[in-house]
C-alpha cells in the first residue's frame, strides 16, 4: 500500500492535524513503509477467528447510578488555555 500526498492531506484532515506542506511527502513515505510492514498480516488466513478486543476475558463492572463526583470546575479550569465565567472559550463557531 503506497500513500500519495493527497492521501496524507486527507488523513491529516480527518485527524485534525496541521502538517507542514514541506513535510507531507516525508509522511507519505514513512506511512507507506509502515503500511507495508502492517500488510504482512495478510500472510495468515484468519477466516473464522474471533477478533480479540481485550487481553482478559472479563465482564464489564457495573456500579450503582449514584452521583460520586464532586464539581471541581474551578480547579479543572485553572489549567485551561482560555476561560470566562466558567466557560471554555474557543473561536466563534456560529456567525
Amino acid at each position, binding site marked *: 500500500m503506497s500513500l500519495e500526498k493527497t492521501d496524507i492531506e486527507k488523513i491529516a484532515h480527518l485527524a485534525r492535524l496541521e502538517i507542514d506542506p514541506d513535510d507531507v511527502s516525508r509522511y507519505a513515505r514513512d506511512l507507506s513503509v509502515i503500511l507495508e510492514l502492517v500488510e504482512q*498480516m495478510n500472510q495468515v488466513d*484468519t477466516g473464522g477467528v474471533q477478533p480479540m478486543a481485550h*487481553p482478559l476475558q472479563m465482564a464489564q463492572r457495573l456500579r450503582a447510578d449514584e452521583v460520586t463526583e464532586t464539581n471541581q470546575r474551578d480547579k479543572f479550569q485553572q489549567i*485551561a488555555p482560555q476561560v470566562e465565567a466558567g466557560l*471554555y472559550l474557543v473561536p466563534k463557531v456560529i456567525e
Partner: protein
Amino acid sequence: MHDKTLTELAAGLRAKEFSSVELTRYFLDRIARYDGQINSFITVCADYALQQAQAADQALANGDAVSLTGIPLAQKDIFCTDGIRTSCGSRMLDNFIAPYDAGVVERCSGAGMVMLGKTNMDEFAMGSSNETSYYGPVHNPWDREAVPGGSSGGSAAAVAARLTPVATATDTGGSIRQPASLCGITGLKPTYGRVSRFGMIAFASSLDQGGVMARSAEDAALLLNVIAGFDERDSTSAEQTVPDYGATLDETLAGLKIGLPEEYFSDGLDTEVARIIDAAVDEYRKLGAEVKAISLPNTGLAVPTYYVIAPAECSSNLSRFDGVRFGYRCENAVDLEDLYKRSRGEGFGAEVKRRIMIGTYALSAGYYDAYYLKAQQLRHLISDDFAKAFEEVDVIMGPTSPTVAFNLGEKSSDPVSMYLSDIYTIAVNLAGLPGLSIPAGFVGSRPVGLQIIGNYFNEARLLNVAHRFQQVTDWHLRAPQPFAD
C-alpha cells in the same frame, strides 16, 4: 548509600542510621551532580520530596511507618501528579499541571514513599529509544553514545545510574522490558489489569500497563507490592487478590519448566546476545530447571498486528488533546478547525503524528475490516500461541531485545527498523501477559537482558525465577563506572 537495596534502606531508616530527609537529599544531590550527563529527569521536585521525607520521618518516629516509608522513588512522567507538571514527554503537555494524582502515585505516597521527580520518556510513550521526547533524548549510563531504550528510558537510566533506588514505568509494547534490558536493570511489566491505569496518560488502552524498574528482582517485588491491586476508577482493573511478592522469592526452581521459543532465537538475533542468553539458560539448568524447545508460530506477526492496534487506540485516545480544555493551544486561531489542527500540529511531535495518522487511516471507512478487524483476529492467534505454550511450561525465556543498545540517531529516521527492536516484547502486550527483563551479561560495555514471560497473574513466580538467578550471578550488581561513586 546508592547501592543499598530497598530492604537495607528500610532497615537503615528504622535503625536511625539516616533519616528520610537525609536519604532524599542524598539522591537529590546525585541527580544534581549526574543528570546533566544523561537527561533522565524532566522535572525534579526537591521541595515536594523533602516535604514528603519530613512526613515520612515523622511517621517513622511515631511508629506509623509501613515497609517502604521514607524511601525515594522516581515516577515516569506519564503518571499524573497533583500540583506537579505531567508532560508525558510532549510539548502538548509542557504546561499541564494535573488536577489529581494517578492511582499509582497515590499508592506510593500512601505508602510513605518520597517522589524525587518525573522521568523522561518518549513522547506519549511512543518510541523505543527515548529520542521522541520533547525534552531531548536520554543517554544510556553505560555508554553515552547509546540510547537507553524506550519509552521508559528516563526511569531505566535513572535507576541504572543510581539516581533513584527504584522507579515506576509503563509498557505498551516493551517500554519497561526493553529499556531495562538496554540499561542493565530489572524491569517488570505486570499482567494487564494488575496495576491501575487511573491517571496514567493513555496511549493504547488495551495494551498499556504500569510496572516497576529496580536494580534487583527483590526491590521490584517490594515496589510491586505497593502499586499492584484493584482500583475501581480503572474499568479494566483486575479484581484479583495481590500476594506478597516478597514472600516467595526464595522458592526452589527444581522442576521449573522453561520454554525457549525457537522463533526468539532465529534470524535477526545478534549472535553475541544469543550466546549470553544461552549461558543464562544454563544457569537455570544448574538451578534445577528443565528446559525445552517450544514454538510461538505467530511471533513474526506481532509487530505488524501491534502497529495497527496501538495506533488505532492512540488516534482515539489522543483526540482529547484539542487545545480547548488543557494543554497546548496555538496562537491566533482563525476558527475552531484551525484551533484544533494547529494546536495538535504544533503540540505533537513527528512520531506521535505518524501513529495518529496510521490509526486514523486504519479506522477510516472502508479500511476497518482489512486492518483493525484483521489485527484483532491475529491478536487472538498470538494469544493462543502463549496459551498452548503454558500448557507445557511454567515460564518462557528468551532475549528481551535482538541487540544491545543501538547508537543515538541510528534508527531515528527509519520508523520500521525502530519498531522491529521490540520484536520479542510486543506479543506479550497483545496477550496481556506479565513479562520481566533481568541483566544477563554484556556485549562490550552494553548490557544484555534476559526476558522471562509468565502466565496471567503469575508475577510472583516471575520474580522468584529472576531472584534465584540474581542469587547466583552478579550482573545486576554491576554499576556503570561514571556513576559508581
